[in-house]
């Protein structure tokens, strides 16, 4: 049984507070045959500047170091892509570094940017991420993604990452979903919700008005996962600007506090040894004593059904922010919905529901902006951006897009940005006639989860309005 030391579990204590000053994102698409990567990065940085009423040139004068995230050199066929982007953004001779943690790359880039400010090295930093996934055909793209699995022990088997992932989904589906048609429908509801939310997001790649039946009848990718259960493959860019208090208030009168925690687990699921469930502040050991009885086969942790990295990232981030119970303390979340089933698994890892009971977050209606059962605001809406299933998964940008979207709600700019006719037009789209304002009214605190593959890296980012700071935060 693996255990962790007190030193390893220490809640990080930053030397000073770090603020999210602004953020931006490009449009996301499956392909941009007539745009280079840096044009999309410039779109994201320009939006960040405009959001605080300045220009990119003026904003750049405050930036001291830069943290760039893109998942794979292979996709862009360019080593040291961070140097290309850094130059094209005109940020030389500032120190910069590339961050690579698979699907968690965006979150990890922000993690580094925040620590640089907290340490005092920099007063203002840029975290910017992107991915270019359109320059190889899909099967070669799948091979590249599979290269992020273990090259000797996994990749030669099919060169298909979905397969390595889907064995976890299968185990969760059979043990905790009990292979029930009702559980399958709950999974489908997530796809319907997130693709539906994407309809109102001008940046989104995959808006779709679909039904549970459509999801259940979409082609099987790896049973029980079907095509509409899976996230998008995207091209695009997103960024965040963070700063210390003094610099943040120089740039804007409305910065947000930001806390980032990070966790990891073995690259190969094969290597995950049995351990006790690390508890979050609102959980007790007793509540899991009979987990194996309620869900036969479910007593092995994290086994194939839990993501230890996500749990650890939340342990650190909740500790830093003073979050005791995520459902009570957070106003909404942007989760890494790579697949509908992994979304359900995440509800448990991040403590929105206890292990084994993730499905009830959807079934209760708590995860909706407007709970379809009560017609009232959902208790803790998830992925109003559309998430990875509806908005995008341009890997290195994803974690930053999520934080950008969280910021828009907390800054009360969400309706303006998402509802702007001009923005829809600038992307060559028509603002939908039935456009809805999905702003989470009165939101003070949000969580974004950035997650790599089968859970090798996960970051948890909490952004909050400074006046609503929780007691007990570090």
């Amino acid at each position, binding site marked *: 049984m693996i255990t962790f030391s007190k030193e390893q579990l220490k809640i990080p204590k930053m030397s000073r507070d770090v603020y999210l000053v602004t953020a931006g994102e490009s449009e996301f698409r499956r392909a941009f045959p007539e745009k280079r990567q840096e044009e999309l990065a410039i779109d994201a940085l320009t939006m960040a500047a405009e959001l605080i009423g300045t220009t990119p040139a003026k904003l750049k004068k405050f930036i001291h170091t830069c943290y760039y995230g893109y998942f794979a050199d292979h996709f862009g066929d360019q080593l040291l892509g961070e140097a290309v982007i850094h130059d094209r953004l005109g940020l030389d001779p500032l120190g910069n570094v590339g961050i690579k943690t698979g699907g968690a790359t965006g979150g990890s880039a922000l993690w580094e940017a925040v620590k640089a400010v907290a340490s005092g090295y920099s007063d203002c930093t840029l975290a910017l991420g992107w991915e270019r996934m359109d320059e190889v055909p899909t099967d070669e793209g*799948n091979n590249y993604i599979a290269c992020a699995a273990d090259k000797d*022990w996994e990749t*030669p*088997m099919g060169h298909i990452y979905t397969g390595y992932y889907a064995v976890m989904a299968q185990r969760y589906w059979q043990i905790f979903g009990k292979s029930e048609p009702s559980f399958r429908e709950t999974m489908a509801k997530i796809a319907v919700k997130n693709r539906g939310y994407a309809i109102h997001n001008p940046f989104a790649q995959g808006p779709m008005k679909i039904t549970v039946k459509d999801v259940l009848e979409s082609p099987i990718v790896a049973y029980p996962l079907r095509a509409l259960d899976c996230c998008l493959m995207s091209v695009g860019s997103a960024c965040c600007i963070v700063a210390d208090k003094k610099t943040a208030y120089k740039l804007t009168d409305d910065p947000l506090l930001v806390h980032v925690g990070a966790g990891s687990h073995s690259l190969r699921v*094969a290597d995950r040894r049995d351990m006790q469930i690390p508890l979050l502040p609102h959980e007790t050991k007793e509540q899991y004593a009979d987990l194996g009885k309620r869900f036969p086969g479910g007593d092995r942790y994290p086994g194939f059904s839990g993501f230890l990295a996500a749990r650890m990232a939340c342990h650190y981030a909740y500790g830093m922010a003073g979050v005791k119970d995520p459902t009570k303390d957070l106003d909404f979340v942007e989760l890494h919905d790579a697949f509908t089933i992994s979304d359900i698994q995440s509800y448990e890892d991040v403590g929105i529901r206890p292990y084994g009971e993730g499905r009830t977050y959807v079934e209760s209606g708590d995860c909706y902006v407007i709970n379809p059962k009560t017609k009232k605001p959902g208790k803790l809406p998830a992925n109003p951006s559309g998430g990875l299933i509806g908005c995008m998964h341009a890997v290195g940008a994803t974690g930053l897009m999520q934080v950008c979207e969280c910021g828009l709600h907390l800054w009360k700019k969400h309706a303006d940005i998402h509802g702007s006719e001009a923005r829809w037009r600038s992307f060559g789209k028509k603002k939908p006639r039935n456009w809805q304002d999905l702003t989470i009214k009165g939101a003070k605190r949000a969580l974004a989860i950035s997650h790599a593959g089968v859970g090798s890296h996960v970051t948890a980012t909490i952004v909050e309005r400074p006046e609503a700071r929780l007691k007990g935060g570090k």
Partner: protein
Amino acid sequence: MAATKKTASKKFVEPRVKVVNGQYKVSGNFHRIIPNTPIYNEKNKLCGVTNPRELTHIHSYGGEAIFFESVPKGKLMGAQCVNPDCEFPGTIWIPFRSCCADCLTRNKPVDITKVAQETGTVHSFMVTERTGAFNTLEIPIKFINVEFTHPNIDTILMGYLSYGEPEIGMRVVPIFKKKNPTFTITDLSWVPLGTPKSKLPKDFSF
């Protein structure tokens, strides 16, 4: 352009590598030059170019080589921690690793073929029709994760089933590509306990 054409039309010789005196000695063609082509949009405006290439990498198995060498010999090797001061002394690592992840001392290779034959059980599985480029396995691929019952083994090996339909809890036994081995993990496969020899894929045996 003329030079490119000349190089491209040369006869391709299969790339080979030997280790001599601690150095790689290579022969044959490790890459092929293929001319690039322009990409236009429907208005005949240039958008970009293709960047073709074909190349061979060299890769060292290092301390794990014994695992990949043993599979075509019909042996499944684990790696055991022999450090008595380790937090978890005696751990058998499978997937094989050269050093113990807990204490970082060099592991000792141990034959766990019998454990696999007698206790291999499907922990989870997935059947998929989709593959990435360069796949060499038969479609659909039936991924399985194999659990072993042994006091020192706490990990669950990933593999693929070569016969029958997988289900959680199914007893499986290893099969080995003893003929024409690739010396990759695909030389190791699994079949349900009791599968007759006649049903094994070409070049594989128990």
